[in-house]
């Protein structure tokens, strides 16, 4: 499902080059679950950006859904992206759209019929407990509510690969547990799931294999 061979990622060019990732090699089978751990600045977000196909590796080989991303034509990437759900550390909701429209976005981009969009989004918002806030814009939502909207947007397409960057950062313990139940349920239904987090207690409560990064390198995969 996911395979990396000596993958590197550098930001910028010329003098201001930052090497965010270097020599990453690992793989995650279909239906696998991984924690993604490491100190701040270790490169967790950068790795998830690569897996979300929001950036191409600057070195090595990356394959996702059995597609060699370095060789896949640009025009073929959107269809792959639609099979990937991503919860961003900073949510990245569209400020001028309601929670409903934000969650509906992936379905509408994929061209799903409006009836199905309505049913799926309503169901999803109910599941994350935002039914009564569906008309609110992100600015009118609390941090936790925004995070739940971002989670709803990531899973509403039933992605085959689910990436979550610090998804419990703004949630209380009950909400965090509820989110873990959702992620595990998605995983049980066949999705491959990667969750980047600093939350050691959460990891302790849900032991699973973990990829550990430090300064852009993979230091453990166990």
């Amino acid at each position, binding site marked *: 499902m996911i395979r990396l061979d000596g993958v590197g990622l550098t930001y910028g060019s010329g003098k201001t080059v930052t090497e965010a990732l270097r020599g990453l090699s690992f793989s995650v089978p279909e239906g696998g679950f991984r924690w993604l751990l490491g100190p701040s600045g270790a490169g967790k977000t950068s790795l998830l950006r690569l897996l*979300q*196909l*929001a*950036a*191409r590796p600057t070195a090595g080989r990356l394959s996702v859904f059995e597609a060699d991303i370095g060789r896949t034509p*640009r*025009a073929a*990437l*959107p*269809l*792959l*992206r*639609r099979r*990937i759900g*991503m919860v961003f550390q900073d949510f*990245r909701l*569209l*400020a*001028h*759209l*309601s929670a*409903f*429209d934000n969650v*509906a*976005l*992936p379905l*509408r*981009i*994929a061209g799903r019929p*409006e009836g199905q*969009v*309505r049913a799926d*989004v*309503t169901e999803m918002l109910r599941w994350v407990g935002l039914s009564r806030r*569906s*008309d609110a814009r992100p600015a009118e939502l609390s941090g936790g509510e925004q995070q739940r909207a971002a989670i709803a*947007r990531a899973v509403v397409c039933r992605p085959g690969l689910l990436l979550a960057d610090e998804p419990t950062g703004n949630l209380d313990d009950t909400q965090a547990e509820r989110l873990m139940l959702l992620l595990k349920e998605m995983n049980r239904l066949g999705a491959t799931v990667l969750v980047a987090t600093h939350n050691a207690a959460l990891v302790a409560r849900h032991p699973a294999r973990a990829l550990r990064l430090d300064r852009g390198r993979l230091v453990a995969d166990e």
Partner: protein
Amino acid sequence: MSKAPSLRSSRLDDLGLRRALGDGMLPLLVAAMAFLAALALAGSAGAAALVRHWQQGAATTLTVQVPTPLLAATNAAAGTRLEAVLALLHASPGVTAARALSEQELRALLRPWLGEGAAASPLPLPAVIAVRLATDAADLADLQSRLAALAPGTLVESHGAWVHRLALLARSLQACAWLALAVVAAVAAAVVAVATRAGLAARRDAIEIVHGLGAADTYIAARFAARTTRLAALGGLVGSLAALPAVAGLAMLATPFVAAPAAPPPTFLAALPGELVLGLTALPLFAAAIGFVTAQTTVRLWLRRLP
């Protein structure tokens, strides 16, 4: 509550372009361009009408004067000089008609110069032949020398020379008008491109998010193009409507030069030639096309920076 999103969905402004590309500046600038384009079109149509009129008329007529028409031609077998000249004219390629003016016509023509006395003038009158040519390309020098060989002193007078110069002037005006149109179209495209780039910069975050969710370039470019097409069409419409009075006025002023002299003076809008009406109608469509193509191109080029 659950109804509202679906009602809006078909026009869902997911990139927030209503604000990023929504100010009145783009339609206003396009309207100004369309106004200029309409004036250029009017100029071009007017010049074209003049050229056509002149070429159908004076450019293709000749006058041939035979000084002593009733003397025998150089080649006596050909009859009188007038007969010989007429016969040669009829046999010349490119001549569609050649007719000797009658005595009365001739005297009527001369009356302004000779007064009423012209009717009784003992002066020998030359014969005057009105010739109509198929095109204005005939070799007049050659014709003149062949005619003079039959009837010495015969003169071929072309009305074409000055008409040619006027037609050349009119054609140059027409070329300038087309050049102006091309420049106006280029400026309109540049205006749309600048507005689109500003919109792209303003909505970069939203574009990246939508791109990350699997939107193809087609999807994003279509959002921008729908907006610029609508705004440019609006501008084109306003511009050509605003130009209508000026253009109709010009057309009315031009009517006496291009219409049959006997035609009654036209009413205001009826003065517009059909091709000009067509051009003015096409302006908003053309503006819309510029808006569409420019936005599509600009957005697609810009999107290449995203993976």
